[in-house]
C-alpha cells in the first residue's frame, strides 16, 4: 500500500474517521489494528515477525527496567540486539554474506558450493528493528522507563505513518505522546495537511519526475555522454532527496493530523558546508541513531584522532550496509566516512588558507557547498548504479569529459521538466528557511488557500503516478 496510491487514500480516510471517533484505549486499538492492516497489506506473513519482535522487546524492556542486577540487565539488552539484528541479518544479509563468501572462496580456489535461500525482505524491517532496539537500549541506560502497557508499546513499534520507511522515532519522543488523547484540532489538520501535500509534491512531482530521466541514464549508461551522465547524477541527487524527504514529510504530516509531533528528518541537506553538517541535515533520525548507539559507544571522538577516524569509518560503513545488502552501499558509506575523516584532517588548514587568501564569507560558503554537493553526488553514483563496477565506469566516463555538448543530452523534455520543478523546490525551501511556512499556514488563511491549491495544481499537472515505490522501502 504505497502512500501515493488510491488504496492508501481510501485506507487513510477510513482510518482517520475511526481514529477521531474513538478515544483512550479504543483509539490505541484503532491505531494498532490500522497499522497492522497497513503492514499486512504488503505481506501478511510478516505480521508474525513484527508481532514477535514487539513481544520480545516488550518483555526484555520489562526485564531490564525491573532488574537491579547489572549482569542480568546487560544480558537482556544484548539479547534484544541479537534478536533484532538477527532478524535483520537473516532477512537482509544472509544471501549477501553467502554470495560474498562464495566469491572469496572461488577467488582462493577453494571448491565450496554454498546455497542461497529464496528470502523476501520484510518491508520496513531496517526501520522498526532500529526503533525497537533504541527502546531497550534507552531503558538499559535508564534514560527511559519501560512502557508497561503492551498495547501502547505495540502501537509505538507498528505506527503505520513511519513504520516502513521512517523516520526512526525514539521511544522517549513518541511513547509519552501515546499516553495522551489528542483531540481533533483544525490547527493540526492544517499544519499536517500542508506537510503531507509538500511531501506528495516532493515525491510525485520532483522525485518520480526525475526518476523518468534518471532511469534512462542508469539503465543504459553507455548511451550517454559525459554531460548526459552528469545530468543524470545531479537529477538522482534530487530524486533520492525528494523521494525520502517526501515520504518523511507525509509520515510526519499524517502524524501531526492525528496530534503527534515527530522530529524533522531532513533539513535542506544540500546547503551543507561540511560533511558533518550534511549528516546533521540528512536522514537525521538514522544519523542520530548511529551516533548515539554506535559511534559514541565505540568511543566517539574521545580517544584521540586515530580512534575518532576509526569510529567514523566503522559507523559510516555499517550505515552504508544498513541501506542494502550490496557492496556498493558499503562503498557509499565508506566514501562518506572518508569524507568525514578528510574533513577533520584538512578543515583547519582550509580555514587558514582561506584567511590568507582573503576569501570572503559568501564565496567560502558557496565553495564549500559546491564541494560537499559534488562529493555527495559522487557517492550517490554508487548508491544508484547496478554495481560498484558500473559506478566506477560511470564516474570514469564523467571525468573523461567525453561529450560535453548540452545538445547531446538525451530526453531533453524530461530533463527540462525536472530542472524546472527542482527550481520550484529550491525556491520553496529557501523561502521556508527564511520565513517558516508552517506557522504562516496557521496565521494566514489566504496563504493557506493559495499554497494548498497551488500544490494540488502542480501535483495534478506535473505529478507522475503509477506504482513508483519509495526508494527507501527497499531498505
Amino acid at each position, binding site marked *: 500500500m504505497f502512500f501515493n496510491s488510491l488504496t492508501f487514500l481510501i485506507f487513510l480516510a477510513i482510518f482517520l474517521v475511526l481514529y477521531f471517533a474513538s478515544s483512550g484505549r479504543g483509539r490505541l486499538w484503532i491505531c494498532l489494528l490500522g497499522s497492522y492492516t497497513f503492514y499486512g497489506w504488503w505481506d501478511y506473513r510478516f505480521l508474525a515477525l513484527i508481532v514477535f519482535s514487539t513481544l520480545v522487546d516488550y518483555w526484555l524492556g520489562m526485564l531490564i527496567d525491573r532488574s537491579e542486577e547489572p549482569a542480568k540487565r546487560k544480558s537482556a539488552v544484548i539479547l534484544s540486539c541479537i534478536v533484532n539484528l538477527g532478524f535483520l541479518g537473516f532477512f537482509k544479509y544472509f544471501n549477501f554474506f553467502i554470495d560474498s563468501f562464495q566469491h572469496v572462496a572461488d577467488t582462493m580456489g577453494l571448491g565450496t558450493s554454498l546455497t542461497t535461500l529464496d528470502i523476501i525482505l520484510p518491508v520496513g524491517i531496517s526501520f522498526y528493528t532500529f526503533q525497537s532496539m533504541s527502546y531497550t537500549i534507552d531503558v538499559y541506560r535508564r534514560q527511559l522507563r519501560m512502557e508497561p502497557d503492551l498495547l501502547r508499546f505495540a502501537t509505538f513499534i507498528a505506527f503505520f505513518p513511519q513504520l516502513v520507511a521512517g523516520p526512526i522515532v525514539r521511544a522517549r519522543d513518541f511513547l509519552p505522546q501515546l499516553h495522551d488523547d489528542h483531540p481533533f484540532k483544525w490547527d493540526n489538520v492544517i499544519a499536517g495537511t500542508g506537510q503531507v501535500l509538500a511531501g506528495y509534491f516532493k515525491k510525485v512531482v520532483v522525485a518520480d519526475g526525475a526518476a523518468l530521466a534518471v532511469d534512462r541514464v542508469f539503465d543504459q549508461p553507455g548511451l550517454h555522454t559525459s554531460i548526459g551522465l552528469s545530468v543524470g547524477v545531479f537529477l538522482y541527487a534530487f530524486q533520492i532527496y525528494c523521494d525520502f524527504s517526501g515520504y518523511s514529510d507525509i509520515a510526519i504530516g499524517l502524524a501531526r493530523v492525528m496530534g503527534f509531533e515527530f522530529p524533522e528528518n531532513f533539513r535542506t541537506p544540500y546547503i551543507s558546508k561540511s560533511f558533518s553538517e550534511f549528516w546533521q541535515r540528512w536522514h537525521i533520525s538514522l544519523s542520530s541513531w548511529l551516533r548515539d548507539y554506535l559511534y559514541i559507544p565505540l568511543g566517539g571522538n574521545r580517544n584521540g584522532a586515530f580512534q575518532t577516524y576509526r569510529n567514523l569509518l566503522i559507523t559510516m560503513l555499517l550505515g552504508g550496509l544498513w541501506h542494502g545488502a550490496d557492496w556498493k552501499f558499503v562503498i557509499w558509506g565508506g566514501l562518506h566516512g572518508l569524507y568525514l575523516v578528510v574533513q577533520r584532517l584538512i578543515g583547519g588548514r582550509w580555514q587558514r588558507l582561506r584567511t590568507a587568501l582573503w576569501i570572503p564569507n559568501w564565496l567560502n560558503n558557496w565553495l564549500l557547498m559546491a564541494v560537499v554537493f559534488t562529493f555527495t553526488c559522487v557517492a550517490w553514483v554508487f548508491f544508484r548504479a547496478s554495481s560498484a563496477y558500473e559506478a566506477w565506469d560511470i564516474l570514469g566516463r564523467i571525468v573523461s569529459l567525453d561529450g560535453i555538448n548540452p545538445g547531446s543530452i538525451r530526453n531533453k523534455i524530461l530533463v527540462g521538466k525536472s530542472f524546472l520543478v527542482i527550481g520550484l523546490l529550491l525556491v520553496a525551501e529557501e523561502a521556508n528557511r527564511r520565513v517558516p511556512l508552517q506557522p504562516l499556514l496557521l496565521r494566514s488563511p489566504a496563504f493557506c488557500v493559495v499554497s494548498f491549491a497551488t500544490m494540488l495544481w502542480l501535483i495534478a*499537472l506535473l505529478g507522475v503516478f503509477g506504482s513508483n515505490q519509495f526508494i527507501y522501502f527497499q531498505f
Partner: protein
Amino acid sequence: MKRGITLLLAVVVFFVGDRIGGRILDNLLYRSPQRFPTLYSGRFDADTVVIGNSRGLNMLDWPFAEQESDTSIINLSHNAMPPQIARAIFADYLEHNPKPKRLVIEVSNVTTPTAEGTMLDYKPFWGRSDRLRNLGKAFSPLTAAACRVTHLYQYNSEMFLRAMSYLASGNTDQNAGMRMMIPPALVEETEAMEPIELTADPQEVEALRGLVDDARAAEVDVQLVLAPYLPAYAARISNLDEFVNDMSEALGQEVQDSSRSLDATDEFADRVHMNPKGTRKFTQQLIDQGILK
C-alpha cells in the same frame, strides 16, 4: 470551524483554478506548431504521410525529402508509437485534414506491445479524438476518471510538454530526430551480444493490418518499410529475413527490407536509430526506390 472553511475554500479554489487552467492549456496546446496539435487543428495538407515509432521519426530527413521529392510530406511518427495508436492517429488525420496520396509505414513498431504510459501520453488530445480517448480508457479507466475529476491532469503528459517547448520555439518537430553519434563502447557491446530475435506482438500486428486496411479503404497508397539497423546489430538478429517475410504475409503486401541498407557505423545514433548523416542517406534511398514519390 474557521480552519475548516479555509480548507474547504482551498478545495474550491483548486477546482475553479483546475477548470480555468485546463481551458488555458487546451488553448495553448492547439496553438503549438508541434505535429499532433497541428493535425487536430486541421492545418495539414500533405501528399505523403509517414508513420511509425522513433525509427520512423529518424528515418526521414524531412526538409531534404520534400525538396528532393518535390512533394509535401508529414511525418507523424513518434517515440514508442505502437500500431494501435498509429491507426487512431491516421484515422484522425483523415477526419481532420485532406486525404494524402500515400502512407509510408515503418513496421518495426509491431515488436513493442503498447505500454500504458505510452497510451496515456496522448491524453491531451482526448478532447479532439474519441479514438484516442477510447483506447486510453480501455487501458486505464482510472486515468479516464481522474481526467474528469481534474482537467489539469489531462495535460500531465510528456507530449504536452513537447508541444509547449515547440510553441515557445515556434518550430515544428517534423525533423526531431536523434543528433548524436553512436558511442564506440556501444558498438563493441553490440558486437559481443548474443543473437536476438525480433518478435511481433500479435495484437500490434492486427492493429497494423487494420491501419493498412483503413488506408486502402480510403484509397491511399500504402508503402511498408523496415528501416536500417546498425550493421552490427542487424547481424545479431537471427530471424531478420523471417520477420520481414512474416510481416509481408500478415499485412498482405511486401515490406521493403532496408534493415541492412546502411553499412557505416557513423551513420547511426544507437543500435536502432540513424543519425542525421544516415537519415539523409536513407531518405535519398527512399526517394530513389519510389517510396516517397
